[in-house]
């Protein structure tokens, strides 16, 4: 097997908010009918958690499940475990009309840490960050590219975007978090 690397080799910028490219992260796209018993059962038994409510995040012991759309979930897990989880989920779904794909190498993940991370996100995305809550996931755009983000703690956020946009996303966040560029919203 080839030696997997992240898009930017763990690039890091220390501005008033620290931007870091996350190490290799497992990501699995699930599409299916949430109302179907077979699908819900598979999510519960393979990923250890229920299907999250609309725009919410649900956490299992080894995987975090994000609500992406009324028929799509994103599972964030350990990079090495992703392929096995895909195989398990596919086997358990059987004839159910659903899709399970390992997209770990097709996405890039960034982490923001710092007390003012809401401000950095608000600079780039058309989201009212004063209303944004923990446990919520939001798909939106960051400047010109599509992305999804959620808060893991008040001072720690994760952002997922397409891997081919990794450099654009990193430079965007780096620029927005430069020391001296604080707006003072948070």
């Amino acid at each position: 097997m080839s030696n997997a690397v992240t898009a930017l080799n763990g690039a890091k910028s220390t501005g008033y908010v620290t931007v870091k490219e996350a190490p290799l992260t497992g990501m699995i796209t699930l599409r299916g009918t949430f109302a179907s018993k077979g699908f819900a059962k598979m999510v519960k038994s393979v990923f250890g958690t229920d299907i999250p409510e609309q725009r919410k995040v649900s956490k299992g012991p080894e995987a975090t499940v994000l609500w992406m759309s009324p028929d799509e979930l994103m599972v964030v897990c350990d990079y090495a475990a992703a392929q096995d989880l895909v195989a398990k989920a596919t086997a358990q779904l059987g004839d159910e009309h659903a899709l399970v794909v390992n997209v770990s190498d097709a996405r890039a993940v960034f982490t923001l840490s710092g007390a003012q991370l809401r401000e950095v996100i608000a600079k780039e995305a058309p989201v009212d960050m004063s209303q944004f809550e923990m446990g919520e996931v939001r798909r939106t755009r960051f400047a010109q590219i599509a992305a999804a983000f959620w808060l893991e703690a008040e001072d720690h956020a994760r952002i997922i975007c397409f891997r081919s946009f990794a450099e654009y996303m990193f430079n965007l966040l780096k620029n927005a978090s430069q020391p001296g560029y604080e707006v003072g919203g948070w």
Partner: protein
Amino acid sequence: MLILECPYCGVHAEETELHAGGEAHLKRFGPGSSDDDFENYLFMRENPKGVHFERWRHVNGCGKWFHAARCTMTLEVFGTYSAQTTEPPKDICDKISAKRPGWSWRNFS
């Protein structure tokens, strides 16, 4: 700035998160239809000053298509609703009637 609530994910999405998809509730006339019907389907669009129905896609979000009823003059949004319908739902029509008595748009009123 236009803010529409996506009926699929409940996000109050700002215009730049969405993509406009043109006029809503078009009836398709394909091969075998009369030239007049085909021309109307392909080229003839409403251009109202006032109540209008449009298709939008939550492109930088959940990716779903939906319908929106709004006023082209004041940018007031009367409501958004599912794409799985061929006519505006009654509650949206009632809301419009309350605010714009006597409105009509194509064959809806």
